[in-house]
């Protein structure tokens, strides 16, 4: 193949036709509160880890819903499991449990 000094760029879109949503389905099936997020961001606002890293529980779970599973294990590892997010969540999402489920299952899904 010839190198013209540039190349085609991959799409930046979420493509829900090809997205891997296995993890999202697993989480929804194993924690009924997974779907209840209303994206208020209170979890991220109060998060200890978010003060020093770009960790956001809201963003992590949204990314998982869009099929961005690969990075989720690394992201979930940033959580310190302090539980403050569970305390503030207005929808009673069991955030701590969901983080633990992600940590466990990412390994079984992406061996």
């Amino acid at each position, binding site marked *: 193949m010839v190198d013209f000094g540039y190349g085609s760029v991959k799409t*930046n879109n979420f*493509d*829900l036709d090809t997205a891997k949503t296995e993890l999202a389905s697993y989480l929804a099936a194993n924690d*009924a509160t997974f779907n209840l997020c209303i994206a208020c961001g209170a979890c991220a606002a109060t998060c200890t880890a978010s003060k020093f890293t770009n960790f956001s529980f809201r963003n992590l779970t949204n990314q998982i819903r869009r099929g961005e599973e690969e990075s989720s294990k690394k992201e979930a590892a940033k959580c310190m499991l302090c539980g403050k997010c569970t305390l503030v969540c207005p*929808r009673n999402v069991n955030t701590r449990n969901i983080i633990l489920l992600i940590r466990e299952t990412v390994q079984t899904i992406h061996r």
Partner: protein
Amino acid sequence: MDKSVAVIGGGVAGIETAAELGKLGYKVMLFERDSELGGNVRNWDRLFPSRRPAKEVVENALASLNGGISIYASTSISSIKKENGAFTIHSSDSKQFQAQAVVLTTGFELFPAEKKEEYGYGIFENIITSRELEKMFSDYGKPRMTNGKPPHRVAFIHCVGSRDEKVNRPYCSKVCCITAVKQAIEVKEAIPTAEIFCFYMDLRMFGHGYEQLYKEAQVKGVNFVRGRLSETSEAAEGRVIIKVEDTLASKPMRLTTDMVVLMVGMTPATGTDKILQSLGLKTNEDGFAPVKDVHLASTQMGVEGVFIAGACSGPNNITDSINEARSAALQVHGYLNGE
């Protein structure tokens, strides 16, 4: 009592106003341009938030109409003239009626979805309006595609003809969010394996029981994505591709769907502007009929003796329309008794 009141428009607000005025003993003329009473609610299968059959509400209202009420169906009102404290109502077939007070209950029409050209309504298959989905529920108990099969992926598009200056509808139509949530649950119940998406800009769950219904939809697995539809297109196999941004992730998103439901907003009923003109009134900035005072006189108008109820003054739900109807009836009663 020989005082007569003209009620213009026979949807739920008009029927309720007429019924209340009838109970108070007035001679009521209820004008409806359609051949049947009931207005937009007649085209709905079930109502949010309780999902009761829509016809119950219409039937209940109709049952409360008594003998003092004359119904003029298939009668379109073109103008109202006030002279010496009394009103002459002109119909478009050149009939005239006299009344001492008037209540405007001309309601709304659904936004014509084809005006959002890029949404492909009327062009691509299986793009329907919220009203057409209601009809599918009435006719078959579930949505079905043009090939007769059930859809496996359904996208609800909020704010079609609402909050959109491009189509001159800058206002929120209030009831579409909760209607989408209700319909999403109904589709999910009718076709449990279907994947459902709601694309919203804000979810405006203001009424009693609405937020709970939203949560019920989440529990049932309806996906809510914050972002407005930009355009639809047709894939090779005739499915519909939609493009939105997941604004919470700051990333564009595309997906192929079997059916797209456009949550069409409320638009002022055609002809209301002419009636307003004949009364020397102008529409408000959204094109609806203006109330006298949004806080203190929301069922009165700028002309003494003319009252208003329901969605002709702006998007409304049934609860508020019925309450306004009752309020307007009391206001009429006070006016005719010199209060």
